[in-house]
């Protein structure tokens, strides 16, 4: 796979199907071929007109010529509209965008290619599944976490993936699912000490990324996370999608500097809303300078 410039292409929905109780697989056919690297994303505008005022970001799972496959969950107005779209519905696609996950060859200075530990939660699966398909090797470990058995897209994680579920319901009889979160599963498999360092790649909800970062930090492992932030443009012009920098010097953008970032480049204390509907961290003492209503 080679890097490629982003393209703005029109196209249409080719197919839509469920791959778990809550996860959809969407295939769009575009007017031209595209390529991507695992971890890159696209901005998708369903309707192609102005039904969506802002396009929505989605990781790219696969590209086959002019056909692009995405996985998504219906969480709000835009994704609900996508979940009910029909083949032939027009789309506008902008991609591939952003920085990909490193390939195994991009070893840290002076080291040989490390073994990898991939952790995906929910719709964090596509970029890591794409990475496994492109670069996976013997010795790498692939872990996927879902809410319960129904939430896991079993057909997609059949090859080499181990799964964790929060609740042990609807798990097919012939599979072995760990009860707990995906980081607990990693601890279970790797034990408290590991022989060889691994590079950790993760994508999923913020709580997962925090836990993975802490886990990798304990062992001193290189950790790359794919972050989510609300996006305006997706191509680096609006400064909408910012992620606080670890050095306190302002922000990185999820769309241009990311979405894949080194975990230690992020100020985790100031990143994201506190879970469970509490006030945003900005309102609970994460002091960064300007605070006004101006655009």
């Amino acid at each position, binding site marked *: 796979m080679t890097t490629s410039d982003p393209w703005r292409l029109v196209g249409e929905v080719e197919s839509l199907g469920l791959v778990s109780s809550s996860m959809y697989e969407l295939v769009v056919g575009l007017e031209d071929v595209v390529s991507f690297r695992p971890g890159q994303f696209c901005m998708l505008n369903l309707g192609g007109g102005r039904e969506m005022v802002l396009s929505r970001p989605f990781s790219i799972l696969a590209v086959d010529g002019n056909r692009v496959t995405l996985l998504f969950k219906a969480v709000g107005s835009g994704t609900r509209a996508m979940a009910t779209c029909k083949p032939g519905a027009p789309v506008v696609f902008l991609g591939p965008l952003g920085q990909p996950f490193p390939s195994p060859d991009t070893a840290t200075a002076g080291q040989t290619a490390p073994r990898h530990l991939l952790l995906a939660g929910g719709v964090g699966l596509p970029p890591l599944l794409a990475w496994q398909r492109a670069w996976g090797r013997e010795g790498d470990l692939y872990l996927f976490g879902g809410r319960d058995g129904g939430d896991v897209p079993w057909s997609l994680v059949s090859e080499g993936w181990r799964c964790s579920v929060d609740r042990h319901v609807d798990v097919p009889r012939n599979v072995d699912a760990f009860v707990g979160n995906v980081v607990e599963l990693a601890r279970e498999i790797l034990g408290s000490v590991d022989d060889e360092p691994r590079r950790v790649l993760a994508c999923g909800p913020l709580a997962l990324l925090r836990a993975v970062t802490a886990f990798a930090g304990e062992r001193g492992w290189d950790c790359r996370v794919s972050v989510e932030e609300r996006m*305006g443009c997706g191509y680096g012009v609006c400064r909408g999608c910012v992620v606080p920098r670890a050095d306190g010097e302002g922000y990185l953008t999820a769309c241009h500097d990311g979405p894949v970032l080194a975990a230690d480049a992020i100020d985790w204390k100031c990143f994201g809303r506190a879970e469970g509907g509490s006030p945003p961290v900005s309102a609970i003492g994460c002091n960064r300078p300007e605070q006004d209503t101006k655009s």
Partner: protein
Amino acid sequence: MMRRPDWLPFDPGGEFRLGPRVLPGRVWTASGCFGYGLTGRDIKASDGGSPFDGLGAVVTKTITTSPRQGNPPPRIWDAGSGALNSIGLENVGLDRFVDEIIPALRQDRVPFVASIAGTRPGEFGDMTRRLVAAAADCEHWHGVELNLSCPNVAHGGVDFGRRPETVRDCVEAAVAEVTDRIVLAKLTPNVASIAELATAAADGGAHGVTAINTLLGMDIDLATGQPVLPLRRGGYSGPAILPVALAKVDEIVRESGLPVVGVGGIGSAEDALKFFAVGAVAVQVGTSQMNDPFSAAGIAGVFNGS
């Protein structure tokens, strides 16, 4: 190519004069929605076009004298018929704009208008003077757009841009520094009479006004009962505000007679024509340009037949 409507007194595709300048086109990108005019050049389309094709000007992201980090995220939200934003004027500051952005724009031959914001009238003059010193020989630099909706420390936090006298003073300070560049005053719609502000800008010697900046807006996340933006309220833009923007432009044209650059909700050539119909001399594309990097170039293409 679109047939020019009989009622339109000018060719929407050609170059045009505004104050002391001739600009290459009437379709511009709006401040804050296309960065500094340096990003997006690598984006391709199947017809071989570029997002910069046919643009009359890129109005660069508003800069302030010192860099600003901007507001905490989330900063942007699709509120249904429009977008809410709370970027907080994150920008690189005047020094980097002069040292890095202007040389790159000059090299890429991007026609641009620099948007600036200050906290007192004299600062608009000082910033303009720096720009003139740095770009006087750059034929692609057409002038400044004064973003007059910044909190004014000198007046107890009341937006400067809402007081006609300050609007006049800011414009006057900038106009005093230029000879052959445009000074545009960008007006806020969040006032009782926008025409009064335009008249004040005319008194200060502005070559025109840009209208409108975002409307003050808000949305609630029903899952939490909390505002979606950490700072509660933000700027509302996009398709929903087009009729409001059109009414404001109409009011300004009729009451002040100043040339108006229309902005608000424009996403198609038809939308742009509505602004020309009420008397705007040029238009800017904001939210739609974020949504689609070819939005403004596409509209320009309809007008100039490419």
